């Protein structure tokens, strides 16, 4: 295994390479932006039609009151988990290989949360009254219903989104100062000057920075776990067969980490090429990420089996029927595809040669995310199709093209936000790569010195 990063890379060179990404990415960047715009506009068109006509055009019906929107909502929330959570955990564990990749991972968190928020809007029947769900004081003392898991969701996601943005922002202040010092014209200059808050790297600033960053990291870990547990509560707290499962919160958290890690691999490969980050997003780092993803894949598989087993060995006949329905009914192809993508495909990551093979890992990461999207759909839909009440069983409901269009469009929205961000804020953390290079070269020097001393001692004898 090679080195995570070259130790003799000059600090000035790091600045130069990363700043270049803000100005001249490969042509592919513009292709991606253009395609993302097109995809997003499909979603916007569908939403305008649905907003004006009513939710019926999504082809939802009485048992199937939730559709792909809620499934995609969970998917995007889940994807947001790896960025900030992994960044915080690895920071606490002093795993310095996180440094070149954490910035874009945190950006992924932020933007996938924003995408998830979009689905709340798309899903609501009366979006124009959405402020009813906010706890604002009114003269009639009307408050939202604090018992509803949806309200916990709103609160948890708001907390998570704003904390992640703050974590991302605090972490990039030193880099924004670098941008301020190096870019001398246009709106960028103004923007960076404003955002850098007058950062100068004084000892006082660094000292407080270190403590603050550590503190927020400590808060973010339990927060991220609670966010997806609460999303799981939307289902686990309900009474429906197939949802009312105690193991849902950890299962959701594992699934969230899983899809997030897979998305990190996908974006790693794209950014590495588009912004010419080969020196920083190195193959050994990819390898570490892949191994981590494999471990999480196995955790997810285990929890998945637990869920099936606990339903199977319980005496809850209705829940059992839903499980059988998943495996053999209308949804069987998607359900088995989920098992294949989520539990079989990851074994490709065990092959050493493939761990650093970019095309293979790109394909694998996309398949894993497909599996994770299917997982969310297979949680939401089958319960509706085969609930407690036989007269309302509906196995043939299929989401309309409007629904698919909005889900499709959300990918454009995410890509658009993410790619624009990467061109405005350095997607590799410059100051932390410098730290990484510095500490590693110091460690190597120390080692060399120790070896020399040992040799000297031996020579003396």
């Amino acid at each position, binding site marked *: 295994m090679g080195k995570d990063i070259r130790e003799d890379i*000059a*600090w*000035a060179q790091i*600045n130069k390479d990363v700043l270049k990404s803000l100005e001249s990415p490969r042509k592919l960047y513009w292709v991606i932006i253009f395609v993302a715009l097109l995809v997003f506009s499909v979603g916007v068109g569908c939403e305008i039609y649905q907003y004006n006509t009513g939710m019926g055009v999504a082809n939802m019906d009485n048992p199937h009151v939730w559709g792909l929107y809620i499934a995609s909502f969970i998917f995007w929330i889940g994807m947001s988990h790896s960025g900030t959570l992994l960044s915080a955990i690895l920071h606490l564990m002093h795993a310095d290989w996180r440094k070149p990749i954490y910035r874009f991972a945190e950006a992924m968190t932020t933007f996938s949360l924003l995408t998830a928020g979009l689905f709340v809007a798309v899903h609501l029947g009366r979006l124009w009254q959405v402020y009813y769900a906010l*706890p604002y004081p009114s003269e009639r*003392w009307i*408050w939202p*219903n*604090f*018992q509803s898991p949806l*309200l*916990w969701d709103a*609160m*948890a996601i*708001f*907390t998570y989104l*704003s*904390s992640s943005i*703050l974590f991302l922002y*605090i972490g990039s202040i*030193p880099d924004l*100062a*670098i941008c301020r*010092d*190096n870019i001398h014209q246009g709106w960028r200059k103004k923007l960076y000057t404003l955002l850098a*808050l*007058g*950062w*100068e*790297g*004084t*000892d*006082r*600033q*660094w*000292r*407080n*920075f*270190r*403590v*603050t960053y550590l*503190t*927020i990291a400590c*808060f*973010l870990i*339990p*927060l991220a776990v*609670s966010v997806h547990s*609460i999303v799981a*509560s939307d289902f686990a707290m309900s009474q429906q067969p197939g949802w009312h499962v105690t193991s849902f919160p950890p299962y959701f958290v594992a699934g969230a980490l899983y899809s997030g890690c897979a998305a990190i691999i996908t974006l790693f490969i794209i950014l590495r090429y588009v912004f010419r980050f080969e020196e920083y997003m190195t193959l050994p780092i990819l390898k570490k990420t892949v191994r981590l993803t494999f471990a999480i894949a196995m955790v997810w598989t285990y929890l998945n089996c637990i869920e099936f087993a606990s339903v199977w060995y319980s005496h809850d006949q209705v829940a059992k029927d839903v499980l059988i329905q998943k495996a053999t009914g209308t949804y069987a192809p998607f359900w088995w595809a989920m098992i294949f993508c989520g539990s079989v495909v990851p074994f490709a990551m065990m092959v050493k040669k493939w761990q650093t093979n970019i095309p293979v890992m790109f394909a694998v990461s996309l398949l894993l995310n497909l599996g994770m999207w299917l997982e969310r759909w297979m949680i939401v839909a089958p319960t509706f199709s085969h609930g407690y009440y036989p007269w309302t069983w509906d196995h043939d409901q299929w989401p309309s093209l409007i629904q698919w269009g909005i889900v499709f469009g959300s990918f454009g929205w995410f890509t658009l936000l993410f790619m624009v961000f990467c061109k405005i804020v350095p997607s590799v953390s410059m*100051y*932390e790569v*410098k*730290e990484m290079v*510095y500490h590693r070269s110091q460690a190597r020097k120390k080692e060399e010195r120790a070896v020399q001393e040992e040799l000297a001692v031996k020579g003396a004898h």
Partner: protein
Amino acid sequence: MSKRYLLALYNNFDEAEAVVRELRNSEIKGFNAADDLVVKSPIEHPEVEEFLGEKSVKVQWFTLGGALTGGLLAFSLIAGSQAGFYSQMKGGKPIVPIPPDLVLTYEMFILGGVYITVLGFLICAGLPAKRSPLYSAKVSEDQIGILVKGDDGSMAKLREIFTRHKALEIQEEAGR
């Protein structure tokens, strides 16, 4: 008496450390190493803290205060507003149900903690700040800057120390 500023740039932490140690040990009239010495570096570097001497960080007190306030505020607001809803029973559950309220209290605990920590960071680090009188873009690249403030009379001695340690560049400016 007017103060003057002096900024010297160095190539690496070892050189900067030697300078700082000498400045701390020297007794120059009109210059106090504890207050008038600032080290600027492109990376976070714990050793700087060591050779500058311990300086306390107070951010964590903001964190504690913010988190506790957030949690208490959440519970009293939520339980209080549910109690105002007395006639509106939902699903046979108690009017003030404890588990849901605790979930929200937990979230607000974290929210308050994070927000006030950031506020504390801005206050403790003195941000947003105007740029100090002397600043070099080299500091955000790869050099270590040492900024000192002193009386007119101390400038020559300070400059002498910087030069002796082979400063890459020395800037001087009249203070305000």
